[in-house]
């Protein structure tokens, strides 16, 4: 009895440990619920369709298994001669149609919500490069690059000899994460400077392709403070696997002071440097415009 209880306690602790440390929950089976309204909607839709598929699978597979088990020649089964049945065929054409309509309605509703970027409170431009991200706080004049963290970068070299299990957030860590305030509708403008990339944070439920010459939009409104990690999701060359996305969602006050710090640092840095940077950006824009005019 005692033994049983001890075992129970141990397994309960183990389970609790598995649940509480997301990074250790390695045998994950399902989609993450995420931390935004969209990610919740998407998760629910995913589960709805999953269970519909399970229901269909159970029905269809049981008929198959029953047939395989029952209508065996070795059991003396003699084949019947029928080869069609109009009623059955009409029924199993119409029922799927009805199930599909039932799926399409909530799907369409969520899709409309996803594409509605109106009423955003903060706009950030994300530019993909081989192989890093640039974040532009469009209305704040704050802009910086975000690349794979040094520790991960050293460990991921061929035969580096580093035990990657000892690297914190291996391949999912960056030098400068994106910082956004909690409970704020953030509009992300996604583009790329060289080849295709895709900006993706699973916990926000969204990914969008970053395409040179295009500006794509997505939005999220994180409901929980925390650090959320994702990756480039469109093959972009040799180091495609090594340009993670890290977003820190913080309280509004912390965001404000972080932003003020960024601005101050920018001003403190030599003014001429900033001007050169601005000039370069302008030049790039001009080149593209001229090319288009041609």
């Amino acid at each position, binding site marked *: 009895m005692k033994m049983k209880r001890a075992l129970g306690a141990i397994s309960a602790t183990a389970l609790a440990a598995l649940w509480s440390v997301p*990074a250790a929950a*390695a*045998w*994950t*089976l399902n989609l*993450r619920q995420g931390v935004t309204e969209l990610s919740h*909607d*998407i998760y629910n*839709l*995913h589960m709805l*369709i999953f269970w519909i*598929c399970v229901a*269909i*699978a159970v029905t269809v*597979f049981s008929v198959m298994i029953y047939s*395989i088990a029952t*209508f*065996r*020649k070795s059991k003396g089964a003699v*084949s*019947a*001669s*029928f*080869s*069609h049945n109009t009623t059955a*065929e009409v029924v*199993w*054409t119409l029922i*799927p*149609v009805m199930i*599909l309509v039932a799926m399409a309605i909530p*799907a*369409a509703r*969520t*899709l*409309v919500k996803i*594409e509605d970027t109106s009423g955003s409170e903060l706009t950030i431009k994300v530019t993909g490069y081989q192989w890093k991200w640039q974040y532009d706080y469009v209305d704040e004049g704050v802009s910086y690059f975000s690349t794979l963290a040094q520790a991960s970068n050293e460990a991921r070299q*061929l*035969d580096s000899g580093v035990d*990657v*299990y000892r690297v914190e957030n*291996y*391949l999912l860590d960056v030098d400068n994460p994106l910082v956004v305030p909690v409970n704020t509708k953030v509009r992300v403008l996604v583009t790329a400077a060289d080849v*295709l990339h*895709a900006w993706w944070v699973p916990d926000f*439920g969204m*990914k969008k*392709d970053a*395409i*040179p010459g*295009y500006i*794509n939009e997505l939005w999220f409104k994180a409901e929980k403070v925390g650090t959320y990690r994702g*990756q*480039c*999701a469109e*093959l972009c*060359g*040799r180091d495609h696997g*090594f340009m993670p996305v890290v977003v820190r969602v913080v309280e509004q006050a912390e965001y404000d002071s972080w932003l003020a710090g960024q601005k101050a640092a920018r001003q403190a840095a030599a003014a001429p440097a900033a001007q050169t940077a601005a000039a370069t950006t302008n030049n790039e824009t001009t080149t593209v415009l001229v*090319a288009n005019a041609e």
Partner: protein
Amino acid sequence: MSASQTHGHAAAHDHHDDHGPAKGILRWLTTTNHKDIGTMYLVFSLVMFFIGGAMALVIRAELFMPGMQLVDPGFFNTMTTVHALIMVFGAVMPATVGLANWMIPLQIGAPDMALPRMNNLSFWLLVAAFSLLILSLFMPGGGPAAGWTLYPPLVLQTGDAFPLAIFAIHLAGASSIMGAINIIVTIMNLRAPGMSLMKMPLFTWTWLITAYLLIAVMPVFAGAVTMLLTDHFFHTTFFAAAGGGDPVLYQHIFWFFGHPEVYIMILPAFGLVSEIIPTFSRKKLFGYDAMVYATASIAFLSFIVWAHHMFTVGMPLAGEMFFMLSTMLIAVPTGVKVFNWTATMWRGSLTFEPPMLFALAFLFLFTIGGFSGLMMAIAPVDFQYHDTYFIVAHFHYVLVPGAVFAIMAGVYYWMPKWTGHMYDVKLANIHFWLSAISVNVLFFPQHFLGLAGMPRRIPDYSTQFADWNMVSSVGAFGFGLSQLLFVYIIIKCARGGARASDNVWEGAYNHGLEWTVPSPAPYHTFEDAPVVK
């Protein structure tokens, strides 16, 4: 059946001017015989299956553990790219073309393919195409590494391999178009008297529809890669935004080809399963007409769903809505097929020889691939699934235990007819069980990886993905090694074994003209057309 009588008559006469195959290597270089060409296609496809498979094992070996242990990330990308190109264009498609070459004339009572010299050319073009593609691996700058979809602008960064790969695709495409023309002309003109379209065996039917798909989309793909070529060498900017072009245009053109292309791989598989399940259920195929119409509907829908491969590209809402709904519709005709196969087994008299085992595994596992396909059709959820291992799991489920298992079922079904020998059934059963178990160990965990957030086409991953990757890699090596058994069984069967009867399978007696010719099928068959009642 009158067909066998006619054949008996043909065998008694007409043999004074009969000539067998040429001797030595010339036989294979110059042959215009559909059976020889079919055999060459099948052997070629098997060789490619192993080359592409070896590349897959390089991928799975690197992904066995987190951290980079074996290959450079650039070479890893080459492996994923060339693995896909070889498996799609070098293994699965030629295998179904090989089966078509062997079996369509036998199924419709024709003496050969309608355009035998073009048949020879289309095979040897394929050999040239894949020699070039494999050669491209050794070019300065490495092989093609932009993914089998060859998306610009990334693909334009390819080194000297670029023109070789494009030319390889052009040759393979030309070969496919010739093969397709040949199949259509054969089916339209050389059917035996009385063999109306709606009496044709399902394998022939699905290939007729597949051939039309090939003719419709292969030139589109050729156009897309030609534009890549001029963008790279002649300073055009079809796909470069800076020059007024559009990188997304390429994706639309590619997938307008690419979606029908996946049906080009699966429709013949549907045909094979529709032949095999009735034979081993000792019953006629349930709902023949519905099967034909469902195949045609799937082919039609394949032209209007392409952008579901690019939901995250930034389409207008109306576009996303359209492609979501049209894609969901595919579930209806596909469902009809699965239900009809099930109804064929219902109240049948089933036996479980190797072809039936593979067909049944197809039935279950293809359906699982169908379910994940339906999930991905739902655009909002696809924003999560897109470009993750969930997608990898999905398309491998429909291609490996889907198309490849159906092809293996077809080979086990007709091999006694080709060689005149029954293969080692015990070994074939072992091959089946090893394959069926390892393929699930290989691909099922990839669903979990994708849902957990692992992107596809990455050479290394965060430690949270380590466990399922290890399982998947173990499955991969199990599956790869099991296929050596397949080769052994084929070689052993070609060399000898118990004599196969003309009927081969007990249930085959009224399932098509191919069972009315002797085993092995003589070099020339149906020189006088059989009469079908």
